[in-house]
């Protein structure tokens, strides 16, 4: 089933993801061309959210593989259930080794890890491979193979073919250059920080009961903070935290309570150095500019 681009866009909104036009196009392309989608962008712009929203749009299961340095097939693809295997060996002591081996390397003792799980579902799930740049290059090569064949060979068990082709979303933070092969295999979308209007809408939809005027003020303020020379630029998640804090404190207008604004800005600022830079004067200057 292929959804039209506008339908995707509408459904994204319906599930609480305010998309820019282009991401809806990219998601539509993913469907049409059946290619994985590679998302890049600063930390905190909502790359992971895209996958979650996509799963909600298609009413599909989200299977997430968080990559890290040293991630290997055991953790990503499958693992044998060692405890049960050992037990089985003990209880069958005396039997022939071949028979035991055949028994303990059967499906019953196989533990599915995300990649294997993703290709064995009846209904195509959304497979999120998060921060693929953190994994080693060897793993990337292995991933590439899986993404093109959608089958897995387990030496003890044989080849397992995909029962359904998952929708694959990869995200990267750019800590390492990805291989050209992987890049070419994927569609590409660069996610930027949302513009003020979009961020205000995100705040409004995610923070129940917030004033739309306040949401707009917060979005403007955050946009101004992002322009400051900070080490860690606040992401959308930080904005939402801040909005929730302000709403919780009963602030209706940023101008009315500059003190509270400055105090709560620690929701946005995450390092000591940035904290020192974001002095009261700076926050008041920004506030004067935006509110």
């Amino acid at each position, binding site marked *: 089933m*292929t959804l*039209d*681009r506008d339908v995707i866009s509408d459904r994204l909104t319906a599930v609480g993801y305010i998309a820019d*036009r*282009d991401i809806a*196009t*990219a998601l*539509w*392309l993913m469907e*049409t*061309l*059946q*290619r994985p*989608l*590679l998302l*890049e962008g600063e930390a905190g712009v909502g790359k992971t959210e895209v996958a979650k929203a996509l799963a909600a749009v298609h009413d599909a299961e989200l299977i997430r593989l968080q990559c890290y340095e*040293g991630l290997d097939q*055991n953790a990503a693809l499958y*693992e*044998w259930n*060692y405890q049960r*295997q*050992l037990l089985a*060996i*003990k209880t069958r*002591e005396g039997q022939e*080794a071949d028979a*035991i*081996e055949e028994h*303990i390397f059967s499906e019953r003792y196989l533990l599915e890890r995300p990649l294997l799980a993703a290709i064995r579902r009846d209904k195509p799930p959304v497979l999120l491979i998060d921060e693929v740049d953190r994994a*080693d290059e060897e793993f990337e090569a292995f991933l590439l193979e899986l993404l*093109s064949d959608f089958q897995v060979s387990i030496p*003890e068990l044989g080849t397992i073919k995909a029962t359904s082709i998952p929708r694959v979303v990869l995200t990267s*933070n*750019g*800590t*390492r*250059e990805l291989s*050209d*092969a992987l*890049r*070419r295999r*994927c*569609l*590409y*979308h*660069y996610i930027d920080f949302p513009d003020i209007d979009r961020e205000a809408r995100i705040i409004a939809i995610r923070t129940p009961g917030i004033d739309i005027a306040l949401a707009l003020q917060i979005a403007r303020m955050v946009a101004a903070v992002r322009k400051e020379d900070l080490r860690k630029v606040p992401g959308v998640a930080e904005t939402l935290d801040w909005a929730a804090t302000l709403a919780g404190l009963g602030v209706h207008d940023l101008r009315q309570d500059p003190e509270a604004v400055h105090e709560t800005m620690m929701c946005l600022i995450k390092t000591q150095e940035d904290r020192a830079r974001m002095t009261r004067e700076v926050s008041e200057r920004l506030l004067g500019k935006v509110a």
Partner: protein
Amino acid sequence: MKQETYPRSPLTSPLEGEVGAQRREGGKQQAISSQATPLPSPPPQGGREHAAASGDASLLHHSIESADGAIESAIGRPMRQRLTGFARTLRDNGFKIGLAETRDALVLLASPAADGPSRLKPAFRALFCATRSDWDKFDGIFDAYWLGHGMRQMRLVSGATSQVPVRRLGRAPSMQQGSLGQPDHVQRRDGGEGTTATGNARREGASRIDNLASADMRHVVDPDDIAQAHALAGRLARVMRARLVRRQQARRNGRWLDLRRTIHRSVSHGGTPVDLVWRRRKIRPLRLVVLLDASGSMNLYTAFFVRFLHGVVDAFREAEAFVFHTRLAHVSASMRDRDVTRAVDRLSLMAQGIGGGTKIGESLAAFNRWHARRVIHSRTAVMIVSDGYDTGEPELLANEMRRLRRRCRRIIWLNPLIGWRDYSPSARGMQAALPYIDLFAPAHNLESLAALEPYLARI
């Protein structure tokens, strides 16, 4: 290029004209059928590789022609040719595009969603882009090619690629560092009467050389000596690599039990793990990031260091090379060319392209902002090769040095001037940078480079 062949008016852009008309005729039925047809499966990786590498338009064309019948009927031949031309233009601008992408683009054109440029652009962008720099460049190229915006500029870009065998040349910088690479082509021509970027660089360089040259000219006398020195630099880089690798192997000791293999082997012992299988921690090799100052004041040494750079990138498994001047360019890709002379020529050309003066601070800022996160890890040594004559603000340089210091393991600053008699690091830029440097060493000749090696091995 193809642009000239098709008359274009702002109202009937080729997209509207061709596809729009086709769709109106064929009606909905056709569009639906093209969607329902199973997508042509992408050709094997190797094939794509080949076509992309050779950039052979006729080959590409041929296979597009022979693509699915449904697509064929939905899209007219002129449109297919335009698309091929677009793919080629992108490729000329450093995009890595294979047959599969072009064919997918045809599928898109045939589908009902491709209704006019405003809807097609984001779709093509997602399809053709692979990196951030592609992403930034794409809109300009798309508008120029399909909508005729900024045609003059566009022709300049593609003109540059057809004149010189620059396709390869242009690709290297623009691939990683597109925002730097592309404007270069454009500026060079826009400048008009000889005030081009290249010209500037040469002039600026020349005037500085006059001041600096007399002192060091004896190092660069006879072409044979130069060639020999360059070869030595390359060899030196390789020797460094060999030593470093040996040290790592001796150091390996982190070990974990490999449960999967252990259990597998225990079967024949009735489940008692007799043979233990271990895993070892993979040690990351030292990565060397070299930032080479290619400004006029360094002109005497640039060729020599470029050769050294090539040796380093060639020999180290993990090395990245950057050249700066007033701006920073990522040059690792072009340095990976096995053909030394070609790589060095290409790099020298690039180095000339980057304007006069030296802005070390700004270049470092660009490095910290755009590249550091990607190229620097915990076992990275950053080697800056510069004389420290900075035309920018020393405060900026100090700030950026501090940032860099935090990220990497060691900062080595090689300054060819140290080799001069009575040199003291009095240049303002050098003064600002000094507190953050782990090793401040001379680099005016080969011995001084060789002396670095034991230091690098200890990192």
